[in-house]
């Protein structure tokens, strides 16, 4: 009995609800549209902040990477290859070298068995020493310095002292092609090959330039040489202007990094925020709309997020206060964009006027009423790539060994329209900067 009843009930429910349609609820679409916009804005907001975070990360990480990036591996074989390529005789001696046999040149028993073997250390330390004290590495023009002294003595116990320079033979008298090459096992780190000197004969101390130049010109270029990166913090009182606006005072500041390209040129970049406020008048030739509601002024409040990329050139003597000139482009977005638009509305207001006969009569008078509307735009609603031209001249004075103080008058000239209102927004000011070296 129960099953047929259940089946009837279920069938009836299915049939009734299949055909059931609820009447349209007033405001349902508006509610949905609001929800849809909120969802979209939420997504866009996250997207914008993610883009900003990536930019910020990129700006900060690139200089850090340049400053403390991983050191490329320079193996001992690289060094050997470099020497070998410079000295053909090394190629010939390559096989003999491994067995430490000397065939051609008689070696005195008094010969200094100096072995240019660097002790076991980290490559970073070795390379730092290599570049700083012992060997002058190729400079930007490719000029090579000379080996001023043996790098290190071997780690053998009680190694014999290096021969005085006066005991060394005059390399002009050495048949360089007959010099044997030996290496000391184990070859670890940056072990170097060294010629074994022939019997010592008194000679005038002459730098072994010939050998050095032959080898040094092909010494491995220090690929670990890092670009100098400096950081700076800046505060910049500034004046902002736009078309049809009077200049107004604002303040900005930020963090910047500077990557040296050479002794005079560098690339400067960073992040800055600037709070700007200005009042823009409507153009005088603006046609009066039929509604009689005419825009008079727009109060603009902005918080600009600026990413400049400038090339900086220093001139003057390097050991004296330096003047510099920098130029580049800025990309920017706005974190806050508020507008207060003041409209003037012409209205005919009924008034009582006295007529020619002295009797009060109704009349009309034209009155202007001000009405203000407030609008704002979302943060990062638009990103203006390379829209500002930066020009600055500055001077630096050292504060301490690691700190510099820089005063830098600058101008940011708009190359296109900015903001939601398409303002050609520029600024000028003085950047007061503390540079950390």
């Amino acid at each position, binding site marked *: *009995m*129960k099953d047929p*009843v*259940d089946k*009837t*009930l*279920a069938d*009836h*429910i*299915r049939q*009734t*609800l*299949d*055909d*059931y*349609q*609820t009447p349209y*609820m007033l405001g*349902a679409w508006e*509610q*949905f549209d609001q*929800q*849809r916009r909120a*969802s979209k804005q939420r997504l866009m907001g996250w997207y914008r902040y993610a883009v900003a975070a990536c930019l910020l990360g990129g700006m900060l990480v690139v200089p850090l990477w340049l400053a403390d990036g991983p050191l490329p591996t320079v193996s001992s074989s690289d060094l050997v290859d470099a020497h070998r390529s410079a000295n053909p005789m090394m190629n010939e001696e390559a096989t003999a070298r491994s067995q430490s046999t000397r065939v051609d040149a008689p070696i005195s028993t008094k010969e200094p068995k100096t072995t240019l073997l660097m002790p076991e250390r980290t490559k970073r330390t070795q390379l730092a020493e290599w570049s700083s004290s012992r060997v002058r590495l190729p400079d930007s023009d490719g000029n090579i310095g000379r080996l001023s002294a043996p790098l290190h003595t071997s780690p053998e116990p009680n190694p014999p002292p290096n021969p005085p320079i006066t005991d060394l033979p005059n390399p002009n008298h050495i048949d360089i092609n007959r010099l044997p090459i030996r290496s000391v096992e184990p070859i670890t780190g940056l072990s170097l090959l060294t010629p074994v000197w022939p019997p010592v004969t008194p000679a005038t101390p002459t730098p072994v330039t010939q050998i050095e130049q032959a080898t040094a010109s092909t010494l491995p270029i220090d690929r670990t040489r890092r670009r100098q990166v400096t950081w700076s913090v800046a505060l910049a009182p500034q004046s902002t202007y736009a078309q049809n606006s009077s200049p107004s005072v604002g303040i900005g500041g930020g963090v910047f990094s500077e990557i040296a390209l050479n002794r005079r040129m560098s690339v400067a970049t960073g992040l800055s925020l600037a709070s700007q406020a200005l009042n823009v008048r409507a153009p005088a030739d603006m046609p009066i709309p039929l509604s009689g509601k005419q825009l008079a002024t727009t109060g603009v409040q902005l918080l600009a997020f600026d990413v400049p990329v400038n090339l900086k050139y220093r001139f003057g003597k390097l050991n004296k206060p330096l003047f510099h000139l920098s130029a580049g482009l800025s990309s920017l977005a706005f974190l806050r964009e508020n507008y207060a638009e003041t409209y003037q509305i012409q209205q005919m207001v009924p008034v009582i006027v006295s007529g020619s006969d002295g009797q009060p009569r109704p009349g009309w008078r034209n009155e202007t009423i001000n009405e203000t509307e407030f609008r704002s735009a979302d943060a990062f609603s638009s990103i203006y790539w390379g829209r500002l031209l930066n020009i600055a001249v500055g001077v630096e004075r050292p504060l301490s060994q690691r700190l510099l103080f820089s005063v830098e008058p600058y101008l940011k000239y708009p190359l296109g329209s900015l903001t939601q209102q398409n303002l050609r927004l520029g600024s000028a000011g003085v950047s007061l900067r503390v540079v950390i070296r």
Partner: protein
Amino acid sequence: MGTALRYTASRQEAMSIVNDSFLKVFGHISRYTFETTFKGWLRRIVVNTALDHYRRTSRELPVIDPDGPEGQLAESDANIISQLTAEDILNLLNQLPPQYRLVFNLYEIEGYSHEEIAQQLGLSVSSSRVYLVRAKEQLSRLVKHHFHQVNERSCR
């Protein structure tokens, strides 16, 4: 909206489900193939959204013991059943525990199998079967109670 109302206890929740469903429709309109009717596709989205809604809120729901004692079983007349309107049915469905209501809707109206229901709601198949039986029993009782009240009102 009618579909969403079957799965929720309040119009507000149903509205929220409908809005979420339309957001999904707008976001994934490119996935619609013309192999099925748009109404069927939309209905499936609404049902899935209602199930998502249930999963989100299911932690707050009391767990029902499917073997627990049920009230007196009722047998409703076919005549009485035929007089039920859609609003009556929705009211009666709303008086069911959410799990019963879901299983009843999915099985009897949407045509899901017990295996599918079990998978969607994270139940065992046997629980789904028991929930369905209990839902029908409770619904029969509610129908009878409903008409008892209606008759009393009409007598006064």
